[in-house]
């Protein structure tokens, strides 16, 4: 993109060094964390003198850890379904429509994404008590769903703004009512955005700590379990659990990125 590279060569070398240093900064801690899960000793720390897979076999044999994975996954899927449904609806209302109070409506829509983590968790905790929702799975699903709605709205609105109006008009001319033209034209057009937003919500929910911590009952989600174990001391067992979680989330993220890009290219 640089027409005259010779002009900025010195900059480029300097900046590329910074970029790769930044890449090291974001990857090295995770890499070390993964490495430590293979250490044949109970003590976290370098140097690592002998290696083992015992921590991993231990994790996969631990019924508590396995059920925690399932619990977190179930919460993520349920909350994502709600967020996507509500978020798409709000996006359809807000995009390209002028009405009294639209700005206020938009502000309230993005509010949950802007409230700092701890405050959002506290507010949800108080409101759950007010609504009579007991701490536990239902409360976490609800809090994650509300918190993730703004992200769905923003992604779907961006896609919706590029929908050619002529397609809707053509459908209407051919006799489709608003509902049918939405299902047949708008919804298929939104699929890439909805899928992308879903994956994002899944990851947000699966990784969330603060809301799960304050709204959870006795059964921990995965981040809450790791946190609890960390408070009672570091151990390679935690590294093994964290690594499995890391691989899971990174794999979903990479797959989603490729998938949405392919869908965007096709349409």
């Amino acid at each position, binding site marked *: *993109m640089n*027409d005259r590279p010779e*002009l*900025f060569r010195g900059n480029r070398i300097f*900046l*590329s060094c*910074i*970029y790769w240093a*930044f890449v090291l*900064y*974001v*990857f090295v*801690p*995770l890499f*070390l*964390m993964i490495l*430590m899960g293979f250490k044949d000793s109970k*003590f*976290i*720390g*370098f140097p690592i003198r002998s290696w083992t897979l015992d921590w991993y076999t231990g994790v996969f044999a631990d019924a508590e850890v396995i059920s925690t994975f399932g619990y977190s996954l179930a919460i993520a899927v349920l909350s994502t379904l709600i967020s996507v449904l*509500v978020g798409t609806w*709000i996006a*359809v*209302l807000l995009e390209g429509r002028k*009405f009294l109070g639209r700005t206020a*409506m938009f502000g*309230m829509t993005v*509010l949950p994404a802007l409230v*700092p*983590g*701890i*405050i*959002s968790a*506290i*507010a949800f905790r*108080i*409101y759950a008590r*007010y609504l009579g929702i007991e701490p536990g799975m239902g409360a976490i699903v609800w809090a994650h769903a*509300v918190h993730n*709605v703004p992200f769905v709205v923003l992604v779907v609105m961006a896609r919706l703004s590029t929908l050619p109006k002529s397609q809707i008009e053509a459908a209407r001319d051919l*006799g*489709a*009512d*608003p509902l049918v033209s939405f299902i047949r034209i708008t919804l298929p057009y939104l699929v890439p955005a909805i899928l992308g937003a879903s994956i994002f919500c899944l*990851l947000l929910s699966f*990784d*969330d*700590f*603060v809301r799960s911590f*304050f709204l959870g009952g006795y059964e921990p989600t*995965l981040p809450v379990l*790791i946190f609890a174990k*960390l408070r009672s001391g*570091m151990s390679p067992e935690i590294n093994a659990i964290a690594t499995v*979680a890391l691989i899971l*989330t*990174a794999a979903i*993220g*990479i797959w989603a990125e490729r998938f949405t890009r392919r869908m965007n290219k096709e349409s």
Partner: protein
Amino acid sequence: MTNETSGRTFWGRLVGWGPYHTLMRLATASPRRQFVILAAFPILWVLTQHLGPMLQMLRVSLTDAYPVAPGVEQHFTLENYARFFGDSIFWMPFFRTLAFAGVFTFCTLILTYPVAYFLARHVSRKNQMLFLLLLLIPFWVGEIVRTYAIMILLGNTGAVNLVLKWLGLIDRPIPFMYTSFSMGVGIVYLTALYMLLPLYSALEKLPQSMNEAAADLGAGAWTRFRRVSLPLTIEGISSGCTLVFLISTGFYATPVLLGGPSTTVFSETIAGFFHVAGDEWPTGAAFATIMFMAALVITATFQKLMNSLRKGESK
């Protein structure tokens, strides 16, 4: 809708089906009615689910007991807010949190600006997504896992101390952990992406020709940055800083795990009121409200400042 081709498909038959037809005609009788049907649920949701929790928190913060025990009357009070100013054990963490968040936000900006600049200006468009994606991968990993990774990096037997010792720079490990330094490294590590993306999209829009023109007129690298790139990316800087500041003030697990007794932040103070018996909830709610208001005022002031700066530059 008696048209033959549309009669053959499911949707065509649905539209032609009597009861559905009547229902739709009723629903779409006027644009006004159509709008009400579309808007009713979103408005209700946003009011009860998005605004509701915040308003309820505010209400609880103004009461003397919550949840209300049977037979006890609930009273309106400002006591919970007064408590905040009465004890340094409360307002110290509050100001510490704001100071930390400000410093960490600035560090994140300094760290990610060159990275975003490199991505947007020196990488070919084809490779940009690839280079960006490389940085995105670690950010899909959760807050707790990444905090733990920093604990391993900075511990007394951690990688940094190992390398320093190996280089012969130190004899005894430096105690990085449980200080504001370890907390800063952790929080910058967690928030960097939220700064990087707005900066990247602002820099990407900047036409290359501007930099070339400045260079042709004899501006050096530093002048080009200060007089061209920086003023034109103020919007990205402002939204990135706002986002990172808001996120930094809200961390709970990271300060607990990476910080020590001397770095207690306000989120830990707030959380304390919810771990013990329920009668402390109003105070916790009041403190959370104070925190939220302060964060809002600071970010709003900051955005106004940046806006006037931008307008001043363009004159």
